[in-house]
């Protein structure tokens, strides 16, 4: 391998056979190129899906009421389910140890929101202080609702960044400004941001205020929770599924709903959903590897084929070399060395091109579920090593055939 004479021989042959070498290299380079792009795309999908789930706390569990679709214990289908404070409190005491953050939410309807003379058409939602952590809401100014606001039914409001941009562009900060909700003034105490602009078009007020001031009674619109962190993903999924089932069966009992009535309420766990998507991405990744490996196999067959042609083309030369005293292993070594050298160089070229492309274009790719396609260098390097190994295997058959060349036949005059 480190025989300088051999290297000179190889450079000689390559220099004298530029086109052939180039074509061999091209098939290998494109094989690696396709593989790396595919793997990069697979990584991009994983990134994209991870990002998709970052907007809510990953352990969050949500419950939404619906309409019953089944007769149960003498009750007719078509009954609208309404969650109430008692449901929230009960879950809160029953599963105290399982819950990290908890919040009920009420959508305040039929209210007019005004800032000075300007009418604001944004949704008003009553939530608990914990809601900040469940929604992964980031505060960019002021603070979120706190416990004090809850017990004192404080007239305070938190607005989204979009609202600040749209309405409060003339004041330095909306903090301390008052908005008017159905004639009652609310003081703005915080501005939040979300991953999606649509979710920034909300005004949060304490849920207690919402129920008392706007005639909400004890009604709530949905329940949301997050679960305490655990060591690994599998445990987190198990925990989420367990809590989800508990929550669902409690709510079904409380509202006399058939256990198999899917329409009456929806209990949704981000973790479970995430697991499905992660399962999908890992399947897609396996598929990409499969396609990539097939590409490499095609490349290898290509190299093998070309090396066979090379051997045929050089039969006479090999015959001459053998007549001059070349040993079989020196012939095998010559062909193998050349094939490995060409494979390695072109493999690296393909790698550099594809990684360059990913590096340049990758960060600009921001489609749903695909974000920043890239490959770790280790993966790429491993594929090159695999390719070189495969190239060696591919080169071995032609090399072996070269070593078997019969001198007399190869030198026979045509």
């Amino acid at each position, binding site marked *: 391998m480190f025989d300088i004479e051999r290297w000179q021989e190889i450079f000689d042959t390559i220099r004298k056979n530029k086109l052939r070498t180039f074509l061999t290299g091209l098939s290998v380079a494109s094989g690696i190129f396709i593989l790396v792009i595919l793997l990069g795309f697979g990584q991009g999908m994983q990134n994209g899906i991870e990002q998709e789930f970052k907007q809510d706390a990953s352990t969050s569990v949500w419950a939404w009421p619906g309409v019953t679709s089944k007769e149960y214990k003498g009750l007719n289908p078509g009954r609208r389910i309404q969650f109430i404070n008692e449901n929230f409190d009960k879950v809160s005491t029953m599963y105290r140890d399982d819950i990290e953050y908890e919040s009920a939410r009420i959508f305040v309807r039929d209210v007019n929101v005004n800032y000075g003379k300007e009418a604001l058409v944004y949704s008003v939602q009553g939530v608990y202080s914990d809601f900040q952590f469940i929604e992964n809401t980031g505060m960019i100014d002021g603070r979120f609702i706190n416990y004090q606001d809850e017990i004192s039914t404080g007239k305070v409001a938190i607005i989204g960044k979009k609202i600040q941009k749209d309405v409060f562009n003339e004041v330095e900060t909306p903090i301390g400004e008052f908005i008017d909700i159905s004639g009652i003034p609310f003081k703005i105490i915080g501005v939040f941001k979300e991953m999606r602009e649509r979710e920034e078009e909300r005004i949060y007020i304490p849920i207690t205020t919402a129920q008392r001031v706007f005639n909400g009674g004890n009604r709530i619109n949905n329940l949301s929770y997050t679960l305490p962190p655990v060591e690994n993903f599998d445990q987190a999924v198990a925990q989420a599924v367990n809590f989800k089932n508990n929550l669902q069966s409690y709510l079904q009992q409380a509202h006399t709903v058939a256990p198999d009535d899917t329409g009456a309420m929806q209990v949704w766990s981000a973790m479970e959903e995430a697991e499905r998507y992660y399962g999908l991405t890992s399947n897609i990744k396996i598929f990409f590897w499969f396609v990539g490996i097939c590409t490499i196999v095609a490349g290898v067959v290509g190299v093998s084929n070309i090396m066979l042609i090379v051997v045929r083309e050089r039969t006479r030369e090999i015959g001459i070399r053998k007549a001059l005293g070349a040993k*079989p292993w020196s012939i095998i070594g010559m062909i193998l060395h050349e094939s490995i050298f060409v494979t390695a160089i072109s493999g690296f070229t393909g790698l550099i091109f594809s990684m360059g492309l990913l590096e340049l274009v990758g960060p600009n790719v921001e489609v749903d579920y695909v974000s920043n396609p890239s490959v770790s260098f280790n993966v790429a390097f491993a594929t090159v090593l695999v390719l070189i190994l495969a190239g060696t295997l591919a080169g071995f058959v032609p090399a072996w055939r070269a070593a078997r060349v019969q001198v007399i036949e190869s030198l026979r005059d045509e």
Partner: protein
Amino acid sequence: MIEIKDLHKSYKMGSNSLHVLKGINFTVKAGELVAIMGSSGSGKSTLLNIIGILDGADSGDYTLDGVPIEDLTETKAAQYRNKFLGFVFQSFNLINYKTALENVALPLYYQKVGRKERQKKALNYLEKVGLKEWATHLPSELSGGQKQRVAIARAMAAEPKVLLADEPTGALDSKTSYEVMALIQQINDEGNTILVVTHEEDIAHMCKRIVHLKDGVIVEDKKVEQVRAEQYV
């Protein structure tokens, strides 16, 4: 130098076999210049291939410079070829992408001679055949006679015990043929053992001994008065 006893060789051609050499007995001493003659199909090329360790015999003994040649592995055969034998072919068989100098240096590469040393030696042999100025030319830039002289230089570069020439003048016109024969005679004068396969009478008479092959047996083996080739050049 070469001792051959009762050598047989046959080739399988489908279902029937072709008996090419039918008991050859043949001795060559060091320093001889032997012409092997015979019509096509007489077995002369087969004999040369066996002597050149490019092919094995079916039965019989072959001793080269005191070394019995039998049951050789490919590696061993390659070693012996490299050490004992130099080849000159009718169609020159130079490697067409290597320069004259590189072609001559090739057997030395397989003898593991260092690069500098190799080039010096190769240039030396090129000078001997009068082609020193053509060292950096490719075979395609040389005439037939020049190619054959490069081939002879290549064969001699390994300093073989025996030089085997298979129709060395077969592809050349008569003037060039004589030039090549003059070179072969000159090399023989220096004490080298040379076997020339030919079917041309005049070329054969430029050797010191003529062996006639017919249908796989030696029918005539005679010493001749050598005709010097220089007088025709």
